[in-house]
C-alpha cells in the first residue's frame, strides 16, 4: 500500500464522510440556531414573585396599580403601571402617560441621579453630595436673607394646594419672599367664576350622573380634569351599544371629542361663550328655564341697569349668535330645547386644547346656562364638592408682607386671580420694582411648559442663581446652577387633589414603592432638608422630620397614614347633591356678580368703575360688564389679512408639559402629529391652505409675536377655515436621549399669552400667526 495521492484522497473522503456521519454538523447547526434564540444582547427579564401596590399618578389623577416582580437574584423591580379597578373614579382605566410612567422612572437618560452643581469652567454639571449641594443653596439663601434681599428670591412651584405646594409656600413666606408662582389651570378660572356667581370656589360637573352634556370648547375626552374619570363617564353614556347619554361639542375643530359627540357645533374660534349665551336666550324665549333662576341677582332689570334677561334678548338672539359663531339658528334652538328637555343635562366649560386655563367670562356664561337649567346641586348638574378635611401644617410664619409682589397680584393692576409663572417672569425681566437674585423651581419644568415658554426661559436664564428640584434633567434643570434630584411619584411621598371638574371630593396619595436611584428624595424632603439647613424661622415653619411626617399631620382627619397610603386615595362616595347655599354677598345666585362689583368699587369708588373694568380688559359697559357676556378674544381682531389663528390640538398621547415625553408615548403619535422622524405636523383646512398656496406636506414656518416653529402641513377638512392647529407636548430639546429629544416643536413657544379680562390669568388658546412656506 502506497501512501500516494490516490490513497490520501480515499482517506480524506473517508474522513469527510466519517465526520459527516458524526453528530458534529447537525449539532453545530442546531446550536447555531439556538444561539440566535438566545443572543446575549437581547435581555432576559428575571422572573419572580409578583406583587401589586396602589398609588395615584398626580400628573393624570389616575388611580393606578403598580405591578412589581421580586427576582431571587436581582431583587425588586416595577414592571408595569396598570389601572386600579377599585379606584372610584378611574375604575381601572389608564392613560398612555400612566402606562408609560415606568419609562420616566427607569430611563437613565431622563433622570437626575445625584445632586448636581454647574461648573462654569467646564460648562458641565458635576455630581456632588447632598450635604454639599444643600450647603451651597442654603448658603446663597442665607446670604440674600442677611442682606435684606430675601424678597428677591422667587419660587416656581407646580400646584399650590398639594403638600409640595404648601411646603414651598410656607418656606417662601418664612423666608420673606412674596414671589411665588404656580402652574395655572382651568381650576383657577372655574374657582373665580364660581366665586363670582355662586360664592363657591369648589365646583364640579356631575358628568357621570348626567345624560346630556354640552361641552364648550374644552377637550372633554382628551385632557379634561382626570381624563380617565371623564372617559369612564363617557363610557356610561355609551353603555353596551346603547346611547344612554348625549354629548354635544362646541368647538372649531373636528377633534376626537367633536367626532365622538352625538352632535358637533363647529363654531368660529373663540365664540363658544356666545353659543352658550345664545342657548340661554333660547331657554328664556321659549320659557324653558328654571323659574328659581329668575330670583337670582341681576336676572331682571334693576336699579343698576338692565338685567341678564334683557341683555340676552338684546345681544344674543339666535340670529345674532349665529352671526357671531357661524352655528345655524335651527341648530341653536334644537340644542337648547334638547338641553331643556333632558332632566339631567349639564353645560361644561374647561381647559383649552393646550391646557389653557380658559376665559373667566366664558366660564361665567356656561355657569349661567347651568343656572337657567336649575342645575346647581342637582344630580347630573353642577355640584359643590365636599371639603376634604385636610389639616393645616401648623401656624404659618409670614415675613413676606413687607415687599410688593413682582407680578402685582392683589393690586389694582390685577385684583383677582392667582400667581402664574409668566406674569412673574415678565415682571422680573423688567426689573421693576426690583430684580430677582435667586429662583427656586420645584417639581415643574416652566422653561418648557409655561405659557410663552420663551419668556419664562429668558427669565430663568437671567436669574443669577437658579435651583431646580426635579426628577429630570429637563429644559429648566439644564440652566440651573444647582440641581437637586427628587423622585417621580413612584419613589416619593406626595399627594394630589381633586382633578378639575370632578364632582366628588378626591384626594390621592403616593408613596415610595421602589428606590430606583440611591440619592433621590421626595420633593417635600428636599424642601424640608433645605429648611433645616437654613435654620431660623424657615426651619420653625417647617418642623417636620420628613415629607411622610408632614403628610401624617395633613391627613390626620383621613385616618391612619399607612393605611391611607396602602389604599392610595380618599374619594367621597357620591357628589353632594341637594340645594346649594350660595355664599355670595346676596346669599343667592348672582348673574350680576356682587363679589366682582364690590371689588371694582373697592378699587375705584363708584365713579371710576367703568375705567377700572376697561383697564382689566372688559369692553362691555354698564351692568353687562359684570355679568356673563361674550368678549371677542383679542386674537380675533389681529387675525385675517393673511394671518391665521393658532390653536392647540388636544391629545392624551402627549404628556402634560412638566412630564418628559416618554418613548412609548412618542411611539403612539401618528403621522398627523409627528412625521419624518422629527417634524411637527400642523393641521389646516384645505381651503385655507390653498389660499396660502400650501399643499399637503409642505414645510412651513408658523410665526407669532411670541416665537416660531417649523412644521409640515397636513390638510384636514375638519379644521375650521382660517385656523392652524398644532399638537402640544413636543419640541423637547433638553433631555439628551435618542428617542424624544428634538422631535417636533413646542406649542408653548409659539402661542402668545394675553391677560384674560377680569381674571388677569394668561390665556393662550388663540394666537394670530403667519404661516409661511419654509
Amino acid at each position: 500500500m502506497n501512501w500516494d495521492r490516490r490513497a490520501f484522497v480515499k482517506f480524506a473522503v473517508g474522513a469527510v464522510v466519517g465526520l459527516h456521519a458524526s453528530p458534529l454538523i447537525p449539532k453545530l447547526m442546531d446550536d447555531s440556531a439556538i444561539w440566535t434564540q438566545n443572543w446575549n444582547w437581547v435581555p432576559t427579564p428575571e422572573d419572580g414573585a409578583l406583587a401589586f401596590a396602589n398609588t395615584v399618578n398626580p400628573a393624570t389623577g389616575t388611580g393606578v396599580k403598580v405591578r412589581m416582580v421580586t427576582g431571587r437574584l436581582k431583587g425588586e423591580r416595577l414592571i408595569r403601571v396598570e389601572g386600579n379597578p377599585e379606584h372610584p373614579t378611574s375604575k381601572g382605566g389608564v392613560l398612555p402617560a400612566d402606562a408609560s410612567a415606568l419609562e420616566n422612572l427607569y430611563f437613565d437618560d431622563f433622570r437626575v441621579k445625584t445632586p448636581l452643581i454647574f461648573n462654569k469652567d467646564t460648562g458641565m454639571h458635576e455630581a456632588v453630595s447632598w450635604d454639599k449641594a444643600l450647603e451651597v443653596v442654603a448658603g446663597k439663601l442665607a446670604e440674600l436673607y442677611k442682606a435684606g434681599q430675601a424678597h428677591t428670591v422667587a419660587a416656581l412651584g407646580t400646584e399650590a394646594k398639594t403638600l409640595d405646594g404648601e411646603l414651598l409656600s410656607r418656606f417662601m413666606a418664612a423666608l420673606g419672599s412674596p414671589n411665588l408662582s404656580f402652574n395655572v389651570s382651568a381650576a383657577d378660572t372655574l374657582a373665580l367664576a364660581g366665586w363670582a356667581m355662586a360664592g363657591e370656589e369648589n365646583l364640579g360637573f356631575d358628568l357621570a350622573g348626567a345624560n346630556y352634556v354640552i361641552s364648550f370648547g374644552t377637550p372633554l375626552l382628551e385632557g379634561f380634569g382626570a381624563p380617565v374619570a371623564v372617559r369612564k363617564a363617557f363610557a356610561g353614556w355609551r353603555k353596551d351599544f346603547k346611547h344612554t347619554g348625549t354629548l354635544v361639542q362646541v368647538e372649531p375643530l373636528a377633534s376626537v371629542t367633536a367626532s365622538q359627540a352625538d352632535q358637533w357645533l363647529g363654531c368660529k374660534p373663540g365664540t363658544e361663550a356666545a353659543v352658550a349665551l345664545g342657548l340661554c336666550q333660547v331657554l328664556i324665549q321659549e320659557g324653558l328655564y328654571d323659574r328659581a333662576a329668575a330670583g337670582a341677582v341681576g336676572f331682571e332689570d334693576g336699579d343698576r341697569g338692565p338685567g341678564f334677561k334683557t341683555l340676552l334678548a338684546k345681544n344674543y338672539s339666535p340670529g345674532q349668535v349665529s352671526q357671531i359663531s357661524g352655528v345655524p339658528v335651527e341648530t341653536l334652538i334644537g340644542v337648547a330645547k334638547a338641553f331643556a328637555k333632558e332632566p339631567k343635562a349639564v353645560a361644561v366649560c374647561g381647559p383649552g386644547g393646550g391646557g389653557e386655563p380658559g376665559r373667566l367670562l366664558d366660564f361665567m356664561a356656561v355657569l349661567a346656562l347651568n343656572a337657567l337649567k336649575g342645575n346647581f346641586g342637582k344630580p347630573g348638574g353642577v355640584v359643590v364638592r365636599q371639603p376634604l378635611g385636610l389639616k393645616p401644617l401648623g401656624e404659618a410664619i409670614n415675613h413676606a408682607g413687607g415687599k410688593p409682589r413682582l407680578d402685582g397680584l392683589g393690586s389694582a393692576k390685577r385684583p383677582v386671580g392667582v400667581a402664574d409663572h409668566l406674569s412673574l417672569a415678565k415682571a422680573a425681566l423688567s426689573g421693576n420694582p426690583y430684580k430677582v437674585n435667586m429662583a427656586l423651581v420645584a417639581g415643574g419644568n416652566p422653561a418648557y411648559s409655561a405659557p410663552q415658554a420663551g419668556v419664562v426661559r429668558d427669565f430663568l436664564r437671567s436669574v443669577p442663581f437658579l435651583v431646580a428640584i426635579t426628577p429630570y434633567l429637563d429644559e429648566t434643570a439644564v440652566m440651573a446652577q444647582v440641581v437637586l434630584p427628587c423622585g417621580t411619584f413612584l419613589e416619593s411621598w406626595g399627594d394630589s387633589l381633586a382633578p378639575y371638574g370632578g364632582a366628588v371630593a378626591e384626594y390621592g396619595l403616593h408613596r415610595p414603592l421602589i428606590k430606583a436611584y440611591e440619592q433621590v428624595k421626595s420633593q417635600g424632603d428636599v424642601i424640608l432638608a433645605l429648611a433645616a439647613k437654613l435654620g431660623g424661622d424657615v426651619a420653625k415653619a417647617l418642623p417636620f422630620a420628613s415629607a411622610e411626617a408632614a403628610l401624617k399631620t395633613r391627613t390626620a382627619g383621613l385616618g391612619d397614614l399607612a393605611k391611607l397610603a396602602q389604599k392610595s386615595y380618599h374619594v367621597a362616595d357620591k357628589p353632594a347633591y341637594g340645594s346649594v347655599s350660595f355664599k355670595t354677598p346676596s346669599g343667592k345666585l348672582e348673574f350680576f356678580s356682587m363679589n366682582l362689583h364690590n371689588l371694582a368699587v373697592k378699587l375705584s369708588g363708584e365713579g371710576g368703575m367703568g375705567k377700572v373694568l376697561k383697564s382689566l380688559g372688559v369692553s362691555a359697559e354698564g351692568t353687562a360688564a359684570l355679568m356673563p357676556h361674550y368678549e371677542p378674544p383679542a386674537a380675533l381682531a389681529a387675525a385675517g389679512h393673511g394671518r391665521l389663528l393658532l390653536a392647540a390640538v388636544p391629545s392624551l398621547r402627549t404628556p402634560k408639559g412638566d412630564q418628559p415625553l416618554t418613548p412609548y408615548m412618542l411611539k403612539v403619535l401618528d403621522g398627523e402629529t409627528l412625521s419624518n422622524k422629527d417634524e411637527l405636523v400642523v393641521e389646516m383646512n384645505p381651503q385655507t391652505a390653498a389660499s396660502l398656496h400650501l399643499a399637503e406636506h409642505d414645510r412651513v414656518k408658523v410665526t407669532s409675536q411670541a416665537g416660531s416653529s417649523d412644521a409640515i402641513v397636513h390638510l384636514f377638512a375638519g379644521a375650521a377655515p382660517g385656523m392652524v392647529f398644532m399638537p402640544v407636548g413636543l419640541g423637547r430639546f433638553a433631555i439628551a436621549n435618542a428617542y424624544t429629544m428634538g422631535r417636533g416643536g413646542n406649542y408653548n413657544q409659539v402661542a402668545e399669552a394675553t391677560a384674560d379680562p377680569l381674571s388677569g390669568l394668561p390665556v393662550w388658546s388663540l394666537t394670530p400667526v403667519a404661516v409661511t412656506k419654509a
Partner: protein
Amino acid sequence: MDDSKFWPQGVTRCKPGAFIAWMLVCLGLGGWAMLSAFLCIYKGLNQTNMNDFFAFGVWIVVDLAIIALGAGAFFTGFMTYVLRRDELKNIINAAVIIGFICYSGAILMLGIDIGQPARGWFGFWHANVHSMLTEVMFCITTYLIVLIVEFVPLVLENRQISKVPDLSFFAHNLHRIMIVFAATGTFLSFFHQGSLGGMYGVLYARPFAYRTGIVIWPWTFFLFILSAIASGPSFTTLIVMLTEKVSGRKLTSHKVKMMMGKVSAYLLSFYLVLKIADTLYWANVTLPKMGVTFGELYGGGPYGTYLVWMELGLFGVLPALLLLQRRVRESYGLLALAMVLNCCGAVMNRFVMTIQPLAIPVLPFEKFVGYLPSWQEWGISAGVIAYGLIIFSLAYRYLPIFPQEVELNKG
C-alpha cells in the same frame, strides 16, 4: 499564461488577459454583493428598504424570475431525455448549467432574504406541509441536488479531468442514468414552479394575488408552471445566442434554436389563453365577491393598467405571435427579439404577482406606500447575475458543453 490545455478539444477561446479582465468585472459586481450580504447579515434586514408593507422586495422578484427562466433546464431535459428529442442534446448542457446557476443563485439569495439565516433549515426540520413555501423549499433544494448531479458529469468532461480514468468512468455512468434525473427533475420542477405560483394564489386575504383553483391548487399554480416552461427554453436559447455574439463563434445550429423557439411558441400561446381566461375570471367573478374592482387594484400609485397591457400584450401575445411564425424563427435577430420579449413577460409576471399584491392595501383606510430597493438590495441582485456570468463563462471556456461547436466552426 496559457490555459489552452484546459479548453475543450478542438476549440479556441479568447486570450487569458481578456478573460481575466472580464472575470474582474464580474468579481467587482460580486464584491458589491458580498459587502451587501455582509451588511444584511451583520446588521440585519434594516439595510434593505423593505418594510412591513413591502415584506418582499426586489430579491423575491429576482428569485422568482430566475427560477422561472431557469426552467429551461428541466423542460429541455424532459424533452431531450424523456421525449427523446435528440437534436436538443446540442443545447441541453447549456440548459443544465443555466438551471444550476438560477437555482443555486436563488437559494443563495433566499439565505440572505430570511431574517434568521441560521435557522433556514427549520423549514425542512419543522416543515409545515400546508405551506406552499415548504413545498418550494423542498423541491428547489432537491432539484438543485439533481442539477448538481447533472452538472457534475459536465465538469468531469473537462479535458484534463477526464484524463483520470475513475472520474471519466463515473461521468460516463452518470450520463447513462441521466434519464432518471431528468425525470426526477421534471417532477420536482413542475411542483415547485407551481408552488411558487401557489404561494401567491393562496393568499386569500390579498385580492390581488388570490385565485380560485382546484383542490389545494390555485390557478396560479398551473399558470406559473406554464409561463416558466414557456420562457425557460427561450432564456436558454438567448443565453446561447448571447454567448455566440460575445465569443463570435457558432455554438449550436439554428435548427436547434428554432426548435426551442417553437417549443416556447406553443407553450406561450397555451399559457396566454389560460392566463387571459384566468384574468378575466378573476376580474369579473373573483374580485367583485371581495368588494373590489379591477380598476381599483390597477389604480394605486405607479401600478396602472398599462402593466396588464405590457405583461399580456407586449410581452405576451406579441412574442407568441412572432414565435409561431416560421419566418420569424428562421431569422436570427427576430427570433432573439421574440425570445427577449417572452422572457420579459415572465419577469414582469413575477414582478406583478409579488410586489403589486403587497403594494395594494386591502384595508380601505390604509394608504398606498412606495418602495424602492436600497443599494444593498441591488447589490445582492447584481451579485446573483455576476455569479451566473462567472459560472457560465468558466463553463463555456473550459467545458465541452456545445457538441456542435467544433463542427460548426470548421474552416
